[in-house]
């Protein structure tokens, strides 16, 4: 027998060892597909997305080529106005066999009502660090999975609380997707023209800042009303029935120091509570509620007569067409206001934090929404939805939607990138990011003003009551604020069995 030389021995030994290990390696590879394979596992299929027709979703839709490139799937978008979206989404979820994979999870008026029809994403990830629990699914992109709080740190403050948590802190119903945050829009040209005259007369500054109070601002508006002919009215808010005026109510209550919209028994404001207990049960809240009602009516004196027909969009249109000197509206209107083809206020608008209320809080409404997955979908369809959600809330999609199509980024890394480019400055040439600068200040320095309204399962009915009673009050159909508040309290408490 021919003796085997050393080289041949090593060659054969290596081959034999390789052959022995190969099945184990193949098994390991199959059990742990590559990151690319995890994203590509549903190649050629479609994800149906039902969302609101706002700039963030238009941005994500326009950026969805990125998603197709990443996953090989097609994203089919249905974009509707909030009322139509609500009708479709409620029907789809309650029908038991959902058509849409991904739902727009606006906390109010959607999530707090139908969250039980959604699958908590705890099924897919560790909700602290974003690490995948399923071997065939990737981790949430661009998260430090070693950081025990990595997932939350990657998104804007409180946005998980607002758009992804309902009634139970241990469950997460999606990932943060967009943000609509109340800020002040004001005409810099009008402020520059009338400011010095006002200051000469009163000795006070004519400007909006974090230190401006609503009372200071009201005096400025009175001055504009008497002197300024460039606009129809100094101020615009959204006073239309029901959600718009109820949002104003919520913001002013916070500014006046009423917590949790008067539901003192709600333990965790951001999680909400299925039984919120009686409303305005504390005397001090009740007294402040009366003051807010008076204030809402007082502001009518410096507002455009059409405010009672304006929701957010009507208000935005009024400002863009030059009817107003100031409006408080969601930051996402900035791209529209800064579009010279659509708005006479383009390039003339300044942005600032909402004034302080008597409690010293700069209170602003916020509609930070998430994306959620129907519970009734089969697991495979849920996985497709989850891949879409991870992409759409990831830094690449959010950045593209923001820079090219005016989305509202919710990733902190996007804001860092914008800051590095010098966009988060009042004199930035990238005008359509002006709102982000103010929103960031509000989130950083004025977190007590973050106002999402109460998350309660009866939110739709609650809104009908509160919005209806407020509308009657501002329209002069309720004789006194006491009568308005008492009626509201009686009806809301009856709704909740108190």
């Amino acid at each position, binding site marked *: 027998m021919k003796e085997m030389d050393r080289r041949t021995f090593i060659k054969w030994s290596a081959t034999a060892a390789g052959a022995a290990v190969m099945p184990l390696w193949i098994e390991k590879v199959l059990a742990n597909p590559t990151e690319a394979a995890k994203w590509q596992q549903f190649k050629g299929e479609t994800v149906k997305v039902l969302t*609101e027709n706002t700039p963030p979703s238009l941005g994500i839709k326009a950026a969805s080529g990125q998603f197709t490139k990443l996953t090989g799937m097609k994203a089919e978008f249905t974009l509707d106005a*909030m009322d139509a979206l609500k009708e479709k989404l409620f029907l789809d979820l309650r029908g038991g*066999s959902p058509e849409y994979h991904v739902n727009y999870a606006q906390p109010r008026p959607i999530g707090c009502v139908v969250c039980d029809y959604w699958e908590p994403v705890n099924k897919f990830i560790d909700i602290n660090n974003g690490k995948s629990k399923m071997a065939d699914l990737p981790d949430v992109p661009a998260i430090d999975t070693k950081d025990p709080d990595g997932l939350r740190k990657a998104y804007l403050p409180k946005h998980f609380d607002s758009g992804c948590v309902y009634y139970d802190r241990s469950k997460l119903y999606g990932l943060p997707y967009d943000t609509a945050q109340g800020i002040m829009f004001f005409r810099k040209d009008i402020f520059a023209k009338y400011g010095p005259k006002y200051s000469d007369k009163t000795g006070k500054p004519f400007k909006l800042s974090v230190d401006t109070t609503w009372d200071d601002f009201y005096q400025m508006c009175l001055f504009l009303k008497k002197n300024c002919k460039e606009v129809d009215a100094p101020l615009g808010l959204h006073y239309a029935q029901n959600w718009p005026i109820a949002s104003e109510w919520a913001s002013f209550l916070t500014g006046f120091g009423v917590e949790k919209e008067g539901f003192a028994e709600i333990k965790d404001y951001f999680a909400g509570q299925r039984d919120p207990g009686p409303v305005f049960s504390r005397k001090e809240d009740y007294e402040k509620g009366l003051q807010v009602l008076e204030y809402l009516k007082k502001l009518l004196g410096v507002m455009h007569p059409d405010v009672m027909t304006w929701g*957010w969009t009507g208000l935005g249109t009024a400002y863009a*067409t030059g009817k107003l000197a100031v409006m408080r509206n969601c930051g996402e209107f900035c791209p*529209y206001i800064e579009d010279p083809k*659509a708005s006479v206020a383009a390039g003339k608008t300044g942005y600032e934090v909402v004034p302080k209320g008597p409690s010293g809080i700069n209170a602003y409404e916020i509609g930070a929404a998430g994306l959620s997955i129907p519970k009734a979908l089969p697991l495979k369809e849920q996985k497709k939805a989850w891949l879409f959600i991870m992409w759409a809330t990831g830094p690449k999609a959010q950045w593209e939607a923001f820079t090219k199509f005016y989305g509202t980024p919710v990733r902190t890394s996007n804001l860092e990138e914008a800051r590095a480019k010098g966009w988060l400055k009042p004199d930035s040439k990238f005008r359509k990011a002006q709102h982000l600068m103010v929103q960031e200040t509000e989130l950083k320095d004025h977190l007590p003003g973050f106002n999402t309204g109460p998350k309660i399962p009866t939110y739709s009915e609650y809104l009908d009551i509160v919005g209806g009673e407020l509308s009657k009050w501002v329209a002069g159909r309720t004789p006194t604020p006491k009568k308005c508040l008492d009626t509201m309290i009686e009806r809301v408490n009856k709704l909740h069995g108190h």
Partner: protein
Amino acid sequence: MPKPGRILKWLGLAVFFLWTVTPIVFMISASFKGTSDIFKLPPLGDWGGIFNLLFFFDASLVQFESIFHDGSFFSHLLTSIAATGLSVLISVPAGLAAAYALSRANIPGKKHLYFWVITTRMAPPIAVMIPLYVLWRSIGALHTLPGLVLAYVTFNLPFAIWLLRGFMDSIPRELEEAAYVDGKGRIGAFMEIIFPLIRPGVGATVILCSMFAWNDYLFALILGGRGAKTLPVGISELASATQIHWGQIMAGGLVMILPMVILGLAIRKSLVTGLTMGAMRG
């Protein structure tokens, strides 16, 4: 001197005319203006200024150009035409057959059957939306044109049966019997005697069924969805959460009312006769 009653009558008519026509005039006027011109208002007290703003301006087709720009509006228009046309094509002939049976055949309990048919139309569409959605979803008809047509037929067919049976009842049976004597069968008698006599009624039914389908928003929004988006839904999407494209909405509204106006004018004679048919019986 004209009588006070006559003056009041003309005054009432003038108010009614202004009440109904002003919004349409405003829509037509706004659809031919640029966006910023739509929001122009005359100074307070300048009533003549309103007239000028409505009728004397630099007309522009910019709103029409923008709605037809990307082809989606045209696609919604075609879907509307298809959904309305097909639903009427199914509802009216089927309604004619059913109405004929209910009018002429001796069916036990047909009075109750007739009433039951129309009760299906009595509930508001929103009340049946949940079961329809679940049903449509389970048969795969959701977000499809056939599904939307079927939804319209569900509502238009009972209405057509109810309306057409009334017209048929007003035709004396003797005329039909004369046709039988002449050797005609049931179909021959129907085609040669009854149909020509109720043609105005059929015209009215066509118009009313078309109007239901053409103007419908709810079925098209929920059941038609993305796959069968009609004009009312398409136009409503011109109002987004951050911007309302008033000019485009006005131009879209004008495009939307035109087919119904044309249809109404084309068969207005039949429509008037049809709507008054059976009002008097000899």
